[in-house]
């Protein structure tokens, strides 16, 4: 993992909870993923939790250049390459008619009931 801490302290574990994932809210999505990349570079552990409309950020086959926007997938991939874990809440996928096969392959589905453990396992929860 890039930028591992050298001061002996355990790395901070940060969860970024995205509840926006559409191109109508692109500033939120890109802002969150840029923050994810930067935290990873500084040696922190990062989980990106896609919940609610956030699950749309992981849809495979996105072509945002058709409307002149940066790709959310490019940012998501960059975060994954740097060590982020990306999770999508299955109840939220289901409510939106989405299945695992509709998403990019590196996204892991988690049940809503996993959220309490995620809260416990991370030092900071940052919703965007």
């Amino acid at each position: 993992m890039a930028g591992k801490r050298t001061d002996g302290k355990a790395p901070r574990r940060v969860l970024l909870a995205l509840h926006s994932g559409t191109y109508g809210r692109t500033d939120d999505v890109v802002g969150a993923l840029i923050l994810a990349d930067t935290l990873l570079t500084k040696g922190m552990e990062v989980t990106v939790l896609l919940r609610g409309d956030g699950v749309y950020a992981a849809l495979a086959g996105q072509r945002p250049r058709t409307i002149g926007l940066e790709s959310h997938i490019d940012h998501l991939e960059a975060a994954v390459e740097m060590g982020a874990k990306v999770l999508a809440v299955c109840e939220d996928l289901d409510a939106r008619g989405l299945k695992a096969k509709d998403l990019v392959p590196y996204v892991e589905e988690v049940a809503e009931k996993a959220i309490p453990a995620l809260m416990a396992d991370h030092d900071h929860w940052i919703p965007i």
Partner: protein
Amino acid sequence: MGPGRGVLGGRRIAKSTEAKGTLTILVIRGPYVSQAPELAVRTAIEARRQGYSVNLFLYLDGVFNAHLTKDKDYHNPGEWLRWCVEKGINVAMCSRCTGARDLDTKCAIPGIRFGSVWEELTHMIDDSDKVLTFTE
């Protein structure tokens, strides 16, 4: 909240730098469209009053709050931010977000630092006991 002096073992000591802990608050919404700036600022001011070290980082549309420099006779997030600066809260705004919105940093509230996610926010998050993000 200015420097205070305490007594330890009969000796007077300066304890202005001895915060109880550190709170970082992230503001990602602009003024008036959302209650987030008010919730953030009021929490920040109260935390400072209780003796905590407090950081406030304006990110995404949150940077617009830093450019409200005029007085108003209605609620004014710019005025609240000025109070934050006066109270010793470390207020910074994202350089990238500011640039994206064509905001002139010379027109921002004095005392609000121009920073970056890389330099400022990550350090704030790493060094804080708690991080709150008001998004609504």
